C-alpha cells in the first residue's frame, strides 16, 4: 500500500512562542482510514490545517501524493477535501448551489450527475433546494461533507465529524465514511470519541502536546497495549487478601466483594491458573468470574498521561 500523505519533521510555533506541533512525522497509506486522537489543544486541528493550507508550518515538509504542498499547492489542494470542525456554512445559499460553488472553487468543471450522486449518497437530495439555514445540525454536517467531496478529492479530512451529532446520525455517518473508503478515498479523521476511532479506523495516531506519541494499526495497538482484567466476584466479603496472594498484585474493591487481576493477554504464562488455585486453597469461593478487554479509551488515557 503506497503513501498518499507524508509529513516529515513538521513543526509549528505560533506568534507568542506556543509550539503547537513538535517534529511530527506521519505517513498515511492510500485508501486507509486513519484516526488521530488527542485531547483538546493537542495539535490535531493545527496538523490538519498545515496539510490543507490554512496553517503555515514553521519547518518541515508535507507531500500529498508525492507533491509538495508549498511548491505545488494547486495540485495538492485539488487532491484534498476538508470538513472542518465548526459548522461553517453559507446560511442563505441552497444546498445545490453551495455544493456546486465548492466544485467550481476547486477548479472542476460542472458535473450535475456527480453532484446529484453525492447528494443522494448523503441523503441530501430531497433538501437540495433548501437554504442551509433551514437544515438541522446533522444535515448541515452532511452538506459540509458534500462540499468537501464535490471536487472528487483523493484525501478527505474530517475534523471531529460527529461533534454535536446524535447517536443515530453518528452511526449513519460512520456508514457513510466506510462507503467513501470503498470508493478509494483516503480518510483522516480527528475525534474525541474513542468509540468512533475503534469503530472506523484502520490505523490510529495519538497526539498530545503537539507530539505524535504513536501511530499503530488499530488491532495491533489493541493487542500490544490492551491489557485484560480478570474479575472474581466473591461469594462472601473478604477481610484481607491472604499473604500468599501478594505476588499477584491483586486489587480488592472497597466493598471487599470482588478481586481484580490484570494480566497480559498475549502471554502464555498469564498466571490465571495459579491464581485461581491459590484462591481456592485459601478458602475463597466465587459466584462469578469474568474478563474484560481494555478499551481504546483506557489505552489512550494511559498514553496521554505518561
Amino acid at each position: 500500500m503506497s503513501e498518499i500523505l507524508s509529513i516529515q519533521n513538521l513543526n509549528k510555533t505560533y506568534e507568542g512562542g506556543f509550539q503547537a506541533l513538535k517534529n511530527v512525522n506521519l505517513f498515511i497509506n492510500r485508501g486507509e482510514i486513519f484516526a488521530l486522537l488527542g485531547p483538546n489543544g493537542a495539535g490535531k486541528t493545527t496538523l490538519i490545517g498545515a496539510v490543507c493550507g490554512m496553517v503555515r508550518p514553521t519547518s518541515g515538509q508535507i507531500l500529498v501524493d508525492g507533491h509538495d504542498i508549498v511548491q505545488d499547492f494547486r495540485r495538492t489542494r485539488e487532491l484534498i477535501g476538508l470538513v472542518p470542525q465548526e459548522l461553517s456554512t453559507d446560511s442563505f445559499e441552497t444546498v445545490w448551489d453551495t455544493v456546486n460553488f465548492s466544485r467550481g472553487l476547486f477548479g472542476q468543471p460542472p458535473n450535475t450527475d456527480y453532484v446529484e450522486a453525492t447528494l443522494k449518497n448523503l441523503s441530501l437530495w430531497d433538501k437540495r433546494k433548501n437554504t442551509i439555514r433551514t437544515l438541522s445540525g446533522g444535515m448541515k454536517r452532511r452538506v459540509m461533507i458534500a462540499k468537501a467531496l464535490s471536487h472528487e478529492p483523493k484525501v478527505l479530512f474530517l475534523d471531529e465529524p460527529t461533534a454535536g451529532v446524535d447517536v443515530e446520525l453518528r452511526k449513519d455517518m460512520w456508514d457513510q465514511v466506510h462507503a467513501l473508503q470503498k470508493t478509494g478515498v483516503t480518510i483522516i479523521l480527528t475525534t474525541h470519541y474513542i468509540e468512533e476511532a475503534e469503530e472506523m479506523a484502520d490505523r490510529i495516531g495519538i497526539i498530545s502536546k503537539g507530539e505524535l506519541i504513536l501511530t499503530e494499526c488499530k488491532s495491533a495497538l489493541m493487542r500490544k497495549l490492551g491489557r485484560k482484567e480478570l474479575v472474581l466476584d466473591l461469594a462472601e466479603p473478604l477481610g484481607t487478601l491472604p499473604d500468599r496472594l501478594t505476588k499477584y498484585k491483586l486489587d480488592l474493591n472497597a466493598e471487599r466483594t470482588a478481586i481484580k487481576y490484570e494480566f497480559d493477554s498475549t502471554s502464555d504464562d498469564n498466571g490465571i491458573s495459579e491464581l485461581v488455585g491459590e484462591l481456592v486453597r485459601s478458602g475463597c469461593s466465587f459466584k462469578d468470574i469474568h474478563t474484560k478487554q481494555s478499551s481504546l479509551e483506557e489505552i489512550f488515557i494511559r498514553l496521554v498521561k505518561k
Partner: protein
Amino acid sequence: MNWRAAKAIYCFEMARMWRTLAQSIASPVISTALYFVVFGAAIGSRIDQIDGISYGSFIVPGLIMMSVLTESISNASFGIYFPRFTGTIYEVLTAPVSYIEVLLGFVGAAATKSMLLGVLILSTAFFFVPLEIRHPLLMIVFLILTSVTFSLFGFIIGIWADGWEKLQIIPILIVTPLAFLGGSFYSINMLPPVWQKVSLMNPVVYLISGFRWSFYEKSDVNLGISLTMITVFLIACILIVRWMFNSGYRLRS
C-alpha cells in the same frame, strides 16, 4: 490559473447582490436621487453656475463618484469579511487558488456592482438635470478604475478588520469625509488658497476632477495627474493584497 475558481467566487458574490437588491442597488440609488432633488433642484436653482455649468449638472459626476467609491469599499470589504466572520473562508484558503483568482472573484464582483450602480445613478440623473458626456470612453475608464481601485481598498479593509466596528471605521471616519471634501459639491477653486492646497492631499479630488472632465472638459486638477494618481493607488492596493496573501496576514495562522 484557476479560471473556474475565479468564476465561482464572482458568481457567488453577484448572486448575493441579487438576493439583497434593495440594499445593494435601490438604497444608494434612492439616496443619490435625494441629493439631486435637494442640491440640484431645490438649493441648486439658487446657486450660480460653476465653470459655466449649472449647479445641478455640476454635482452629477461628484455624486456618481462618491457613490461608486463608497459602495466599492462597502461591497468588497463585506464580501471578504463575512466569510471570515462565519468561518466559510476556510474553503477559499484550502482551494487551489492564488490571490489573483481570489481578487478576480471578490474584487471583480464588487467592482461590477459599483459600476452598475454608477450607471444607474447616471441614468437617474438624466431625469433631474441636463447632462452631456463629452468623453464617454474616458468616463468609462474612470468608472472602471475607480470601482476596481476602491474595491481593492475595501478588500484590504475586509482582511484587516477583526470586528464589525473596524469594518465601518475607515469608511465612516476617513472615506466619507474625504468624499464630501473631494469636490463633489463644489470646485476646489472656490476655496481659500490654503484650503485649495490642503485639498490637493485628498486623493478623491483627483478622481472627481478627472471624472468631471470627462463630462464637461472642466477640472480642478490636470487630467493626466488624475489618471496617474488613481493608477498609483491601484498598484499600491494590489501590492498590499499580494503581501497579505503571501504573508497570510489575518488569513492563515
